[in-house]
């Protein structure tokens, strides 16, 4: 353990470098998975509690994310870490940071285009902006894409297929 515990701000910065294993351009902080950090005392030693909220119930990336967080903190000298999983309130794409959305777009994934909490996420999403040419002349090919959080679209203007990070 370091002589003095790093500040929480410092730790947030470190975790901002831990990327999602399936979309390696966005960090687990920008995705809104890491909800809370706090120090507590564990038999006289400082212990860091990291509270996370998983994205989709069955997302296989969750286990890898937990491991990556523990590893990243370990490299900074924080070895006494406890990961707590909190389900409620349920994860929503509203928690994606603006920085995260920008990174997704630059990577070729259209970011969610409206609030996931509006209650209308069960309706089809139309006019999603193509991350390559910016056209809204796009249509859904499949409601499910390469990971649980994405749908598969195609742009009728530039003819390129693309992933859409769906509202949730």
């Amino acid at each position, binding site marked *: 353990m370091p002589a003095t515990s790093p500040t929480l701000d410092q730790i947030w910065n470190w975790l901002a470098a831990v990327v999602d294993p399936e979309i390696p351009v966005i960090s687990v902080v920008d995705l809104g998975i890491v909800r809370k950090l706090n120090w507590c005392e564990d038999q006289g030693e400082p212990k860091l509690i990291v509270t996370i909220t998983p994205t*989709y119930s069955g997302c296989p990336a969750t286990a890898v994310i937990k491991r990556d967080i523990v590893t990243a903190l370990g490299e900074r000298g924080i070895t006494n870490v406890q990961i707590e999983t909190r*389900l*409620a309130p349920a994860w929503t794409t509203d928690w994606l940071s603006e920085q995260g959305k920008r990174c997704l777009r630059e990577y070729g994934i259209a970011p969610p285009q409206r609030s*996931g909490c509006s209650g209308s996420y069960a309706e089809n999403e139309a006019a999603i902006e193509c991350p390559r040419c910016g056209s809204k002349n796009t249509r859904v090919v499949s409601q499910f894409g390469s990971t*649980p959080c994405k749908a598969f679209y195609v742009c009728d203007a530039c003819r390129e297929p693309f992933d859409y990070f769906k509202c949730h």
Partner: protein
Amino acid sequence: MRNADCGMISDLTLRDPHSAFRISLFDYLLRLADSCLILSQRLGEWCGRGPALEEDLALTNVALDLNGQAQLWLEYASQIEGKGRTEDQLAFLRDAHEFRNLLLVEQANGDFAVTITRQFYFDLWHSLLLQELLHSSDQRICGISEKALKEVQYHLRRSAGWVARLGDGTEESHTRMQRAAKELWQFTGELFEIDAVDEAMVQQKIGPDPRTLQSPWMDRVKSTFTEATLAWPDAGWMQRGGKCGIHTERLGYLLAEMQFLQRAYPGAQW
């Protein structure tokens, strides 16, 4: 955030592992878990065999969501049982008569029409149930339901969309959908039956009276079938028993495959 509605069950009710309520709650959680788990396993059988690549991905993505939900329910069931059985042991070391899933979800995949119709009947019931469970007096159940409901509404959008398109599609797709709607109808009565376990949950405000889900379910099936130009399936004999462990022979074969590894190599881990 809806959790403001949710209270906590008193610690006293849960302290005694042999209390009748606790045993009922364990059973209730197994019902929620097992329907998700068994349907997930069925959908997984489509992996690599989907009628199109997009469908292959969709079927297995739905399977993945349901698998995750089953895990959340089984984790809680394991704690309520309090006998040291983990969620994996509950999934892989129980025999058919100990499973509490609906008969509907253990039915064979059949053709794509059967798979989609089974999914539509289930998704609709599942979403109505989860909406009620958001107001459960058990906070953990509220939390899992809130998470699962978002996924299930998405599943319903897809399965209802397919019912409409295939029913109102070609002569061949219409005939197959009509056949599937009728074949699976006999397994839908069980969705709305109440027994002692449900009654205990209603009494403690844990879960809804299943009978109250029937009318909204029927309404939505009717409107979807009308859109799909499908005739209403004839009412006839309704099968029952899944909720209390009496299953069709199909479940045994499914478990033989799903549980093979843990049966052959007990305790094997990645």
